[in-house]
């Protein structure tokens, strides 16, 4: 099995690993950011509601 023939498979495998992990971490980060904003909006809404009463 020639090294030069298989090196691109090795490169592809490790690239795939890092891409999968990066995409997953990015998806978590995006969801965290969205939820953080949603939580802030809800807290402000509740504060306004309690101030009206």
């Amino acid at each position, binding site marked *: *099995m020639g*090294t030069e*023939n*298989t*090196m691109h*498979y*090795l490169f*592809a*495998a*490790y690239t*795939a*690993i890092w891409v*999968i*992990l990066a995409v*997953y971490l990015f998806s*978590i980060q995006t*969801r*965290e950011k969205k*939820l*953080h904003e*949603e*939580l802030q909006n*809800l*807290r402000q*809404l*509740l504060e306004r*509601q*309690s101030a009206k*009463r």
Partner: protein
Amino acid sequence: MDQSRHKLFDSVLGGLLLIGMVVALYMAFLGAPREQTMGDLQRIFYFHVPSGMMGLAAFIVNCYASLMYLIKKDRKWDSLALSAAEVGVVFFTIVLVTGPIWAKPVWFVWWTWSPRLTSSLVLWMLYLAYMLVRNYVPDPERRAMMSAVFAIVAIVDAPIVFFSIRWWRDMHPSAMLETGGLSPAMWPAFLTCIAAFLILLIYLIRRRYFLESARLEAERLARLADLAR
């Protein structure tokens, strides 16, 4: 644990993960000797196998958390179960992508319906279904209950994946760790990669768990806001 302790723990875990991954890469590429038959291609093993191990560990955590939910009826356990399932799917995606890349130059095919490969694909699809089905049950309590039952049934495939190469004839390499097929010089790199992936598993489940907890909090606040109208 209060907020500042959580942040400190996250920083320590993040630092350990970074160091662990750098060391794991160093060991996989430079620390481990070149395998005689497959050459450098065999270095896929150092990330492929720990990914499979951590995927199975995540599904075991999912099963344990599901059982705990059925016993305690506490939504925290359902959050942990969901987090573990999602992280397990990510690890098994790595296994199912790197496996064929490794198989092609060695077996001359990308995929074969051998017991290990088939059971791994089925396991991945089961947990993907677990996550998808959750979206179709609007009631949170019913969703958690159904998911817990589903998870306990799905885990049956995990031992099949693990023992498939022992129970049936398979193209997949035999259990090297038991038969002593792994060269002693390769063990330090392999163990380093397992340690790095274990830290990654804890880091990802923890982060996903806190995301789910925040989602539950948002649900609770939304209900309060609705009631106050």
